[in-house]
């Protein structure tokens, strides 16, 4: 299966797929599409990537965060230390990576966390209504439109949750299965 052409094609296609899936997600409220379909489209990109490159590679490419850090100096205040860490990680990554004192750490984004986030977003989108005395999942909409994406509101947030969850689930399933 693993041919160079396919592999390259997929590498190029994946960003397209993801952009398209996000588009489908937001467009779904007015046209065919929505969280599910968007999520499925998005995840199918990853699935093909996994099938061609193997799960490890997919994880390395898309689901790893590089974090950099160095030990705190004895007399350094905690907040200052945190701020510097932030700066290291956000602005000066490349350069700092080669710094001898810096140790870097890879954080793997477990798909379980994506699932949990999706579930959390979906569940919490309904909490706003509940906390303001309305029934659960009472919808709140903004007054403005965002071009292409449409009108933001809690149901859209819900759909985003669905989207994330679907991606997480499909990723999890494919990873586990292709490790077999």
């Amino acid at each position, binding site marked *: 299966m693993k041919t160079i052409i396919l592999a390259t094609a997929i590498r190029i296609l994946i960003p397209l797929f993801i952009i398209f899936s996000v588009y489908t997600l937001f467009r779904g409220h007015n046209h065919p599409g929505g969280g599910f379909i968007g999520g499925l489209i998005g995840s199918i990109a990853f699935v093909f990537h996994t099938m061609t490159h193997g799960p490890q590679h997919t994880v390395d490419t898309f689901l790893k965060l590089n974090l950099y850090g160095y030990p705190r100096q004895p007399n350094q205040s905690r907040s200052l230390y945190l701020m510097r860490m932030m700066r290291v990680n956000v602005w000066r990554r490349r350069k700092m990576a080669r710094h001898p004192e810096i140790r870097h750490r890879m954080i793997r984004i477990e798909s*379980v966390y994506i*699932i*949990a986030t999706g*579930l959390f977003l979906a569940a919490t989108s309904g909490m706003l209504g*509940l906390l303001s*005395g*309305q*029934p*659960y999942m009472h919808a709140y909409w903004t007054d403005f439109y965002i071009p292409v994406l449409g009108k933001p509101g809690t149901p859209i947030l819900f759909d985003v949750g669905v989207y994330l969850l679907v991606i997480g689930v499909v990723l999890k399933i494919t990873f586990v299965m292709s490790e077999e």
Partner: protein
Amino acid sequence: MNHLLIMLPILIPLYGAILSLFFWRSVRVQQFIGILAQVCLLVATFLLLFDINENGIRTTQIGSWPAPFGITLVADLFSAMMVITSSITGTAIYLFSIKGLDKARQSFGYYPVLLILQLGVSGACLTGDLFNLFVWFEVLLICCFVLIALGGTKPQLEGAIKYVTINFLATNFLLTGIGVVYGTLGSLNLAELAVLVRMPVAHPALITMAGMFFLIAFGIKAAIFPLFFWLPASYHTPPIAISAFIAGIITKVGMYALIRLFTLIFVTDQDLTIPLFTVLAGFTMVIGVLGAASQNDFRKILSFHIVSQIGYMLMGLALFTPLAIAGSIYFIIHNILVKTNLFLISGVVARRHGTFALKKLGGIYLQQPLLSVLFFISAFSLAGIPPLSGFWGKFMLARAGFEIDSFAIVLVSLAVSLMTLFSMTKIWNEVFWKKKPDVDPLSEVMTQQQQRDLRLLHLPVVLMTGFILFVGLYAEPVVAMAQLAAEQLLNSELYINAVLKR
């Protein structure tokens, strides 16, 4: 606040599960979250019950969409009682799992799935929408699949395959049933449907037919005759903490759905349904108890007894008087508590002696007097010996049956309860009284850690036994509430008015 209270039984386990997922790597944190969630749930459900008891049926419209169009959550006494009982059981199971389940299983999503199971129970019991009911049943179902197969030992897989296949079919029956209902009446809201079926409809036989789909679907979930096969094939295979919860709760949720639907909606052709239910109830009781009598394994006996007891619950629905329905409700509550407890006890026994086979067990009467007492109470409660809890349900059902001259089914139920007594004494005889055959001195020695663990395992059992004793010795509050709940069920106007705000 009103909207919040009825949502809590759903939100607490949901957020508990989400949190547990975030702490995927740490079993300890998951345990903590789980127990915290269960305790909160317990408090919330009690608050809900008191609230309903005072103010009548509570409803909330999810997303503020008015009644037949959005999804309604309805909490009447029956659903509140179900939710409370399940949260009590859940608390006990959580306590049990900490020491009663191996670490490997615990670290593979056991706690979040258990919470979601709890969520499914709450959802199924509170929802007032037919399709939403289906969704929550699916939540229950997938959790059960996962839990039954968790660990993947051979018997588990074998049980799971039967469980999955048959319940998958049940799901399809349920969906087709929903299709038939929507295709005939054009609505999904239970209250609205209740109104529609009472109006002159195109053809009443279609409603009855739709009812049959639900009878099959929920009949499979509730394990009534002749649809129960998956239960004895699978319930005894997973680790005890899992089978205790599933065995205690799931079939009763199926029974809940049956009672709900056949008191609220499918009441138009009772000339057909009542004799049908009576026959099914009789067979379910008898076949279940025969199955139990023939088994020689602690857990298998208990599993088969579930079937038999489902027959009693169905009997209440078949008799269809306020007292009978109240009897069913009481019986469900009692049975959830007792059955879970018996399973837990079998787990404690097996933890000590490493087996469930009656033949290889023995001598616990002398070794573990406390456990003996706990078992004795639960077992004889199951057998319906007064003044323990089983008696009251049996009494209500028997009286209700006599009152409408259904002598045959009452006599069957009494005979079955004698056979239940027989199999409970069989366990008592073999596991507790009998001397343990071929004692292996090495296996008898326990390290201090093991002893401490074993003692901790008693905690949930004691807790549950406390509830069982309360429900039995001081039955009045539960009985009175079950009667009120039955009145609410049979007086569909109450439900309809509460939902449709008429």
